[in-house]
């Protein structure tokens, strides 16, 4: 077995910083738990703030310190996203503690081309989540976890260091590890130190029975598990079937840019989850909980984004969300974001191509349509569809473009056949290209219609259309092609039955373009 450990030393700080509004001036950050500082960033550490200090001491050291509560749930959500991203590489992933994820990668080495290649791809996949990582590989789970957490300064690169491929190598590496790293050992740290036991090799040289009596069997068990002398079964993490993640913002977001910055964190988690399921997202919902205004909590805003082509590209999802956000007005500042997704399309993403081809042209077109629909609304991006009806106002219909245009799905032969059929219709050019949405009543002089005060010359007709008695909107009309004063051709009609006195007899239906 080969275990890869991912240790995130700054997890709680990074999880907190993701909730800060973008573009705010950088301030030293410290997290607080049970009245004590538990984590500090580099700026705060420079000011002299150390974990374990009291709140008042820290505030006395720097006035503009940003103090926030450490939240276990927030950290757990961020760690879970890391575990999901790791699940794309092996099905055997487990959480070791609140800051460490373990992967069993022996079965994946061949597929990904060795440990170094796997390691590189894993780091690339984790990069969007924006965490600082310490990794280590070892033949035992606990050994890998210990190696990743323990990185002495002289061991060089903390990201790539600490790889032991065999048990003796691991035992050599761990011989110098401090004894407090074993979980139960911490409680007895002072006693162990008093006995002159500093490293794991010191511990191994003592008689086991005496150690077990003094410090409990747990310490010895952990030591044996780390060195591979005892089995160490783990239970694997199961991937949830529905993605649901929330992010409470530190400051309420007032602009869509701030909402988007928060949503970007959630989208990165969503993509990690989708990749672990070997699938692509086809729809997701962003729910925004708003601030109370005038003592009334407004309803949460829900933005539903649907994709024509399922995608697992965080940038594309974010651009769609940006257009969708631009279309809505937010009633109140946003406090909390929640991203929900349950619609996935399984299967690998189509492979990218370097040079333009028909397939990526189509994909680019679909992305363009998707973007237009996200910004303008589904009803504003339409396709035209002919309908077999003689009434001109019903002979075409617009339908929203959903997904792939029909011509794209068919083969070229079907397209050619249909185009040929369409090119030889029964009525070649007797229909105007522009149809008015409502027939426009025309004035008349004598028996002739007037368009903009000038008489029309009737050239062709009548063509009688009598249809629609079956659906309650009958049309009984005589259509004429008429010549307007400036030489353009228009299509006018007159009701076959005499109009009531006072009603217009002639109507303009369309223009020949």
């Amino acid at each position: 077995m080969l275990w890869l450990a991912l240790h995130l030393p700054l997890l709680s700080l990074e999880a907190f910083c993701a909730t800060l509004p973008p573009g705010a001036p950088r301030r030293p950050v410290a997290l607080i738990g049970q009245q004590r500082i538990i984590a500090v960033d580099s700026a705060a550490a420079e000011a002299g703030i150390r974990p374990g200090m009291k709140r008042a001491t820290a505030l006395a050291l720097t006035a503009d310190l940003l103090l926030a509560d450490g939240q276990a749930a927030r950290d757990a959500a961020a760690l879970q996203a890391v575990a999901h991203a790791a699940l794309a590489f092996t099905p055997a992933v487990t959480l070791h503690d609140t800051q460490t994820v373990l992967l069993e990668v022996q079965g994946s080495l061949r597929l990904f081309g060795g440990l170094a290649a796997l390691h590189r791809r894993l780091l690339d996949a984790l990069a969007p989540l924006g965490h600082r990582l310490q990794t280590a590989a070892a033949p035992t789970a606990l050994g890998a976890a210990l190696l990743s957490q323990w990185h002495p300064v002289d061991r060089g690169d903390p990201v790539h260091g600490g790889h032991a491929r065999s048990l003796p190598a691991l035992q050599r590496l761990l011989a110098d590890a401090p004894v407090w790293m074993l979980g139960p050992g911490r409680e007895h740290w002072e006693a162990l130190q008093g006995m002159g036991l500093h490293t794991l090799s010191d511990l191994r040289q003592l008689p086991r029975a005496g150690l077990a009596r003094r410090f409990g069997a747990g310490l010895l068990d952990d030591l044996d598990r780390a060195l591979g002398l005892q089995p160490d079964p783990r239970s694997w993490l199961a991937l949830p079937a529905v993605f649901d993640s929330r992010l409470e913002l530190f400051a309420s977001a007032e602009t869509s840019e701030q909402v988007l910055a928060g949503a970007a964190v959630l989208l990165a988690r969503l993509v990690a989850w989708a990749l672990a399921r070997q699938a692509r997202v086809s729809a997701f919902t962003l729910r925004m909980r708003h601030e109370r205004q005038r003592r009334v909590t407004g309803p949460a805003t829900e933005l539903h984004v649907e994709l024509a082509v399922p995608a697992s590209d965080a940038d594309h999802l974010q651009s769609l969300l940006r257009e969708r956000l631009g279309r809505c007005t937010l009633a109140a500042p946003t406090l909390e974001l929640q991203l929900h997704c349950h619609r996935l399309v399984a299967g690998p993403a189509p492979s990218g191509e370097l040079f333009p081809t028909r397939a990526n042209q189509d994909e680019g077109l679909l992305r363009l349509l998707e973007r237009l629909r996200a910004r303008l609304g589904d009803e504003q991006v339409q396709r035209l569809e002919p309908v077999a009806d003689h009434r001109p106002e019903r002979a075409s219909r617009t339908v929203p473009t959903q997904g792939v245009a029909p011509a794209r799905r068919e083969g070229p032969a079907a397209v050619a056949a249909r185009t040929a059929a369409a090119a030889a219709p029964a009525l070649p050019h007797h229909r105007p290209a522009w149809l008015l949405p409502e027939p426009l009543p025309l004035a008349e002089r004598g028996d002739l219609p007037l368009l903009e005060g000038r008489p029309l010359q009737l050239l062709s007709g009548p063509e009688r259309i009598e249809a629609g008695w079956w659906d309650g909107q009958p049309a009984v009309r005589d259509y004429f092609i008429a010549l307007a004063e400036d030489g353009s051709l228009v299509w006018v009609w007159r009701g076959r039955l005499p109009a009531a006195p006072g009603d217009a007899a002639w109507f303009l239906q369309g223009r020949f373009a």
Partner: protein
Amino acid sequence: MPTLRGLPPAPRTTGVLPAAPRTPEPGCSPATRSTRPGAVAPAPADRPPVPEDLHPALWLAHQVARPHDGVLPSGFAELDAQLPGGGWPARLLTELLLPHAGVGELRLLAPALAALQRQRRTVMWFDPPAAPCAWALAGLGLDARQFVVVRSRAGARGRARERLPAADVLWALEHALKSGHLGAVLAWLPAWLPADALRRLQLAAQAHDGPAFLLRDAQQRTRPSAAPLRLLLASAGPDRLRVSLLKRRGPPLAQPLTLALVPVLAPPALARARAPRGPAAVTRAGAPA
């Protein structure tokens, strides 16, 4: 192209050399001169090299430019002869100015659009002035199902539309042009536009491998425009279209062209239209006399 693309556009000024004569020389009227894409004036041996031999983007003001980005034949031979390169230019805006919708503009564009559809490239329409009739388009050889019609939102339409900057349609048009995945674009722009809108669109069009037609009101003909090709369309009688080239990369065309469109009228009706206009009596029962 080191010509007018970055300069404030002047509709009547073309060419690169300010000293070059703006009016054609006698005996070389633009209507009769050969304007094949590769046509260059024969240079005598003792003169310095002519600019068009130095670089394809250079031409003299009395010649028609040779676009190197590809053209799409318009389907009308007499119009192709006058357009630089012999067709609708790709990667450039083409402005069509109409007195009102319905003078024959779709019949003018239909051959080029049908050629694009045969290559299975998508044509996108932005804010058409009325509902397009699918059967009429089919009669012109176009498959209406393959068009995508984008309309700006209701708030931007209606009475206030004439004054609003039409942010929707400009945004959508710019993204459509920039994406470079479309075959052609037809946009009916509102009368009032921000001053830099056409310049932005022209920049976006450089990524668009196909013609981009802007259809605007004929009242805009006196306004400056960034579009390198401007045509004024007017009806010249039934089934005929008068096309004036207001601006092209080359000398202005003195005489408008008259194109014969795909006929709507049957020959007897056409003869009736050509006949001197008299009181056309229509009886309720039958055809006009």
